[in-house]
């Protein structure tokens, strides 16, 4: 064995901190997927050039080997969460956050803030409630009402710079696990923390690790499940993009706990930025000797490979994911044996979700007892959610378990938006939680403390954490159909209940939204849903009926309106609409008649038009076309 060279984590971190302390400012531009799509990198470049032109010494890379005083450090960060207001720019120690920054705003930012130290008022966030400008994170309600621990560094540190992570104390928890703790002690600490898997199941992470630890080695694996396929969820993307080293540190600690020497990060291919950042993080950690052989002078090794998914939702299921890494079709296997007993290449394998792994270093750093201070006794800690849909503030949020839905939607989210885009108290209809595996929450659940067990009890689930807010103009039958179409499409086809059951359920839902349903449709749909749930092999099939069962439970009247009266109360299902022209509002512009694909509309110019119900195919084109709202769909 080569001579032991321990990486001086403290020294590297301290050197970087010292160099940074000599900078007057830290200017952070959000370089998450959302802000980059809105032109964040153009703002970055404009800031660099403008600072240079004004003679401001704004470094884009810190020279930690030869530290010298400077006017500031300009850096990109991972997702800061408030995607809708992007590109976001924050300045420390000024405590300023600018929203929707364009390259054209840069000269004013440089002049007013960098040179004169004053905020540019017009770029501050305006609280729509009070109309007042909010200076920084603590004044913006979206941030002030969250509790960010896992996401704390996502959005402040530079995810492409391992030294920033080290400067914040990074990889110290891994060093502690390797040099000062036994594998048993690491498992015990995680078990005591009560951490439950964030991928959806909520299985205690410590128990999973302990099961893998007691298996005979060597040749065990740690796999990070970054195949976040739930439509409407992007927490794992944000963590991989924003703090990839935290994920790697979590994997290192897991490897110590179970005695693994190889690891895989399986990243969804739809996330190119996450793939690139995780790959970079692995390379940088290897270069510093943090990953690889002889970890922390112990002689133990852990090597990580990054694997890109190829577009199959079912690969989020752990046994399917392992098949995919082995070069097979991503089809699940019956459990037991559990992957912790026989996983990748038949070896004991721990598979954890991205957010779970990013939480591990925090637990080891502060101790299990401190971690339990947040959240509820059975669901300790915080949970990240992707808050989207008809809500004023969309983005990535983090709150302790036990927080009410009301707090999330109305305090953090700023309320529900109606059809006109304005916030209205009455607009709230439901929240879909947990994507195609989850269920919906209604007004009666607004004050329910959200944790794993409470949500399961009412037929929903935390899932991976997608929260899609829906307003009164959303048809819940159409939502259930949307998810069923998704799971039917993604069913791998291995087991009959899922392959055929989801297809038949989708056909029944099509009957309902297209007006062919009979009195037998709903009972049949419910029977089938229960059978698919009971009979399917893996989590995909077992949970696929959840959106249907949950909407049937809470919005049965809406289903009945579709079935019995052939009416869609939210006026979404086009096949159930019979458009009619209001002669008082119709100006006779002839636009609808020209748009109608089957010539069902007739009328003279400047006179009220008529729709021939016999010819009408209920496509809804005329309703959308009319500029005077003269055509209604019911």
């Amino acid at each position, binding site marked *: 064995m080569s001579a032991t060279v321990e990486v001086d984590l403290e020294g590297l971190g301290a050197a970087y901190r010292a160099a940074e302390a000599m900078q007057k400012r830290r200017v952070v531009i959000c370089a998450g997927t959302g802000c980059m799509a809105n032109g964040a990198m153009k703002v970055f470049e404009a800031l660099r050039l403008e600072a240079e032109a004004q003679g401001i010494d704004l470094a884009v890379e810190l020279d930690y080997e030869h530290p010298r005083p400077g006017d500031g450090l300009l850096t990109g960060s991972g997702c800061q969460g408030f995607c809708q207001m992007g590109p976001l720019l924050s300045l420390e120690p000024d405590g300023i956050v600018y929203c929707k920054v364009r390259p054209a705003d840069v000269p004013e930012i440089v002049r007013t803030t960098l040179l004169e130290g004053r905020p540019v008022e017009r770029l501050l966030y305006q609280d729509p409630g009070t109309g007042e400008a909010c200076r920084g994170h603590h004044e913006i309600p979206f941030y002030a009402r969250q509790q960010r621990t896992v996401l704390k560094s996502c959005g402040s540190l530079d995810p492409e710079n391992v030294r920033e992570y080290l400067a914040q104390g990074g990889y110290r928890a891994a060093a502690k696990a390797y040099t000062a703790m036994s594998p048993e002690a690491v498992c015990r600490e995680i078990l005591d923390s009560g951490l439950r898997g964030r991928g959806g199941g909520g299985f205690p992470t410590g128990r999973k690790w302990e099961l893998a630890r007691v298996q005979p080695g060597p040749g065990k694996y740690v796999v990070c499940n970054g195949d976040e396929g739930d439509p409407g969820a992007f927490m794992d993307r944000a963590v991989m993009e924003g703090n990839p080293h935290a994920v790697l540190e979590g994997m290192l600690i897991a490897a110590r706990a179970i005695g693994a020497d190889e690891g895989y990060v399986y990243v969804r291919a739809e996330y190119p930025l996450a793939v690139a950042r995780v790959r970079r993080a692995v390379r940088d950690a290897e270069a510093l000797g943090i990953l690889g052989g002889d970890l922390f002078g112990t002689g133990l090794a852990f090597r990580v490979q990054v694997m890109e*998914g190829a577009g199959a939702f079912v690969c989020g299921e752990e046994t399917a994911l392992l098949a995919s890494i082995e070069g097979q079709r991503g089809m699940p296997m019956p459990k037991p044996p559990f992957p912790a007993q026989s996983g990748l290449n038949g070896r004991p394998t721990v598979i954890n979700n991205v957010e779970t792994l990013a939480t591990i270093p925090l637990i080891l750093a502060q101790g299990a007892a401190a971690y339990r201070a947040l959240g509820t006794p059975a669901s300790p800690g915080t949970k990240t959610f992707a808050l989207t849909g008809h809500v004023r503030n969309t983005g990535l949020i983090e709150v302790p378990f036990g927080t009410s839905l009301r707090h999330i939607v109305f305090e953090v989210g700023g309320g529900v938006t109606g059809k006109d885009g304005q916030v209205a108290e009455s607009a709230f209809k439901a929240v879909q939680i947990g994507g195609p595996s989850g269920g919906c929450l209604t007004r009666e659940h607004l004050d329910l403390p959200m944790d794993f067990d409470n949500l399961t009890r009412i037929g929903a689930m935390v899932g991976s954490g997608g929260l899609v807010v829906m307003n009164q103009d959303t048809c819940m039958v159409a939502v259930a159909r949307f998810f069923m179409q998704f799971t039917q499409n993604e069913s791998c086809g291995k087991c009959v209940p899922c392959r055929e059951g989801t297809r038949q359920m989708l056909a029944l839902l099509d009957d309902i939204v297209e007006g062919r349903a009979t009195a037998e449709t709903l009972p049949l749909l419910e029977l089938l849903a229960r059978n698919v749930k009971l009979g399917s092999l893996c989590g995909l099939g077992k949970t696929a009926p959840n959106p249907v069962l949950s909407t049937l439970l809470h919005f049965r009247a809406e289903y009945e309106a579709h079935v019995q009266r052939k009416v869609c109360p939210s006026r979404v299902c086009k096949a159930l609409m019979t458009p009619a022209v209001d002669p008082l509002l119709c100006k006779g512009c002839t636009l609808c008649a020209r748009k109608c694909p089957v010539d069902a509309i007739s009328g003279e110019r400047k006179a009220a038009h008529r729709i021939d119900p016999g010819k009408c195919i209920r496509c809804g084109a005329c309703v959308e076309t009319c500029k005077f709202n003269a055509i209604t769909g019911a």
Partner: protein
Amino acid sequence: MSATAELAPKAGRKYEKVLQILDGNRRDRSRLVPILQAVQEEYRYLPEEVMTLVATSLGIPAAKVFGVATFYSHFALAPKGKYVVRVCDGTACHVKGTQDLVDALQARLGLGGSRRTTPDMLFTLETVSCLGACGLAPAMVVNDEVHGQVDAAGACAIVDGICREEGL
């Protein structure tokens, strides 16, 4: 092995890149997915004869390679256009009107039904289940560039812009 040796001399030049990809992955069967990803990166789809070559080189049945290629949605068995337009149909985008975007783009590009690529091989239109840019719903991606909060007119304007760049 002998099949590889026979193929190698005549296939060598034409499939040099594929052989490089195979070697780069140590001809390791478990790396079938990354190998196919790299092949597709090169050809923009998976030509049948290349999949057969991959199967032979890895010593696995061609049926297995086809099985894997057809299982994952990222693998295309037919050539795609120069610009792949992927409209996100995740939940957040769906409730904010993905269908309008798709309808408008189909009309603009003359696509629909089973026709997903324009005859001039410039555009391929697809929907994907979620791009993870839910905060920007509705979102679409052209090759690797993400566009957020796109409406029907905006989507067509992006396509028009590409057409102008292409001198059409």
